[in-house]
């Protein structure tokens, strides 16, 4: 087993600096969208509004993990071993939405 795999230290694009700033402006823009929507929907409370902000959060998370944490440029094995276990979080969220709904009904609808 004398074969030594030489690691390509960065498979990231050469203009990494430009990409970083681009990502920064994307994150900045999404945060501004968050704030604008917040003031637009300030006295409105509903599940749709909550999901809207959660989806915007996930979009920002994609850019932070993908570019800032370099995940986009890592090998697929690493990517999947970190991303796939997050399925458990989705599972837990689903369970707690069902359970929270039930608790809410038991507590407030008499």
């Amino acid at each position: 087993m004398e074969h030594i795999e030489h690691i390509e230290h960065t498979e990231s694009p050469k203009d990494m600096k430009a990409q970083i700033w681009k990502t920064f402006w994307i994150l900045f823009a999404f945060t501004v969208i968050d704030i604008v929507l917040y003031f637009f929907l300030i006295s409105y409370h509903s599940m749709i509004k909550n999901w809207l902000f959660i989806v915007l959060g996930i979009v920002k998370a994609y850019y932070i993990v993908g570019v800032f944490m370099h995940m986009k440029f890592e090998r697929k094995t690493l990517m999947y071993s970190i991303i796939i276990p997050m399925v458990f979080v989705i599972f837990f969220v689903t369970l707690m939405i069902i359970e929270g709904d039930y608790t809410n009904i038991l507590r407030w609808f008499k």
Partner: protein
Amino acid sequence: MATNTLSTEKKFTWGGGKSPFNVSYGKLMMWIFLLSDAFTFSSLLIAYGFIRYSFQSPIPNTIVKPLSEVGHNFVEQMNEAGLFLQDHWPSPELVFNHFPFIHGIHLPLFFVSLMTFILIFSSVTMVLAVEAGHRMAKNEVAKYMLLTIIGGAMFLGCQAWEWTTFIGEGARLYGNPYGPRSFAALFFIVTGFHGFHVFSGVMLNVIIYINVLNGTYEKRGHYEMVEKVGLYWHFVDLVWVFVFTFFYLI
């Protein structure tokens, strides 16, 4: 020097002669740690969502408009107006509406938006430090690390101010003047846990910064430690995105 010659090639090789993940042991372990930490934060935020969902939704506020003038006894006024009730989750806009040095104006989300921008910006300086590390530009790495540390410290200062204001209004782990008891308790626990992560991140950044100045990584031949601590720092920013969403936006 013997240790140095071995570094760049052997460092990434596992027992079988191959590195399945194409990253070093340390970096892989940082990812695994971050995954476990993501579970912890998810659990805290899901607990928040569950408890909030089991209360009734906030009462729509038609009384106070953003940027309007408010009195010193704002919390009592809201209690009298029936916007803070024990059965209803309080609307975050009526709770987090303070800004340093500006008194008597209803400014929902302003301060926390500032905190968010500070953290995003410190994330950018961190990733620029990593990028400079790839080019072995010691001075640039040091410069960006310092900026990241300043950003982190600013964020912690903001959070300390926010906690002080919140506690000053009567919010405690065991109760608060805004409504359900668990409201302030969850706020302190989740933002506190995140704040402690930021604090640890700043401490790690300081250690790495000192090492960069001492030329430790220059001698080692690579700046991978900056990348590892960078991963942690970006994770803290990532968690803040969701804390911001759940505690302030929704």
